[in-house]
């Protein structure tokens, strides 16, 4: 019995350690991704109106679709309604701050959005932060106040990053971005 006790203790320890390994891994996996919150103030914007390219595309194109479904023209030959129309694109440059009072600069962000139908755009964005760069892509509705993008990669401290960016309006004409970064090996 006296000899068996240390052995049992050792076995119990081994079992405990073995049991702890998957638990630790599971808890790490389920642990909420670190959230990075930044506030973005638009600095400059450029809208690209591709009306002439759309018009040209109705006459000369490699497809056989009916042109009336592509662009809606008024009697004066101009496009009906307000854009953005398919093919237009818009570029936004932002300054980023780490605080809601917009006093601590922390980088810049660039959004390049290519409009499709129904005023929806696919936006490629990058957040150039102090520790590296994060890349995010997704759909944004024109005029919409909330949107989410998928983080598709990163560099340096964000090497191999994945995750999600959620955006909501903030005070002082700013946009708040919550970046949930996962999948970082470093």
């Amino acid at each position: 019995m006296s000899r068996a006790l240390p052995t049992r203790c050792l076995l119990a320890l081994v079992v405990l350690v073995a049991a702890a390994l998957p638990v630790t891994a599971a808890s790490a996996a389920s642990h909420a991704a670190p959230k990075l919150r930044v506030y973005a103030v638009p600095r400059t914007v450029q809208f690209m109106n591709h009306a002439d390219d759309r018009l040209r595309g109705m006459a000369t194109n490699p497809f056989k679709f009916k042109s009336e479904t592509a662009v809606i023209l008024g009697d004066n030959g101009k496009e009906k309604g307000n854009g953005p129309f398919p093919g237009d694109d818009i570029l936004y440059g932002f300054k980023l701050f780490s605080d809601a009072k917009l006093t601590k600069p922390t980088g810049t962000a660039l959004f390049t959005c290519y409009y499709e139908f129904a005023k929806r755009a696919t936006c490629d964005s990058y957040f150039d932060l102090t520790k590296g760069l994060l890349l995010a892509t997704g759909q944004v509705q024109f005029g919409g106040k909330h949107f989410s993008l998928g983080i598709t990669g990163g560099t340096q401290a964000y090497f191999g990053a994945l995750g999600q960016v959620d955006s909501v309006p903030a005070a002082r004409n700013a946009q708040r971005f919550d970046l949930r970064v996962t999948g970082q090996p470093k």
Partner: protein
Amino acid sequence: MSGRLAVALAAVATAAMLAVPAAQATAKGRSLVYYAKPTRAQFINHADDRTRGLRLNPFNADVLPPPPKANTGKKGGRAGDNALFSFRLYADSSLRRLVGTAIFSCTFNFAHEAICEGDFALSHGTMIAMGPAQLDSSFTEMVLPVTGGTGRYAGAHGQVTSMPSIFKNTQIMHFELV
């Protein structure tokens, strides 16, 4: 008892053996180096679309102003312009072992910076990267996140660094994959 202990220790040892290579693989990742020789380039000037965009746009009057000198006609890309570059990729600096091609499709934003998508067609699959690049004389290197791939590179993730090489007007493209 000793038999149980041996089994338990063997189990722990097996778990440790399984865990260590996985950790090493994550830390080390894969590293690939190619030498890229430019073959073609095309610049697409969207000055008319910029001008029209200032006049006809879906924003209210309180929209932010566009960048100054948006359409000055000076050399260099302006916001919204496109640039396409193609490369041949070699495995060696003497450019003898051709291993694939690369295409960069870039859209300028501001201050001669562009967002570029790089598509790399290699012998056993493809890789995709995307990110910013300074496309003017101040270019020294660009580091783009690698976002995916096909074939041998399916699920590729990491970054690619491109910098000028001293060999035959080429770029060195260094992939670091997770």
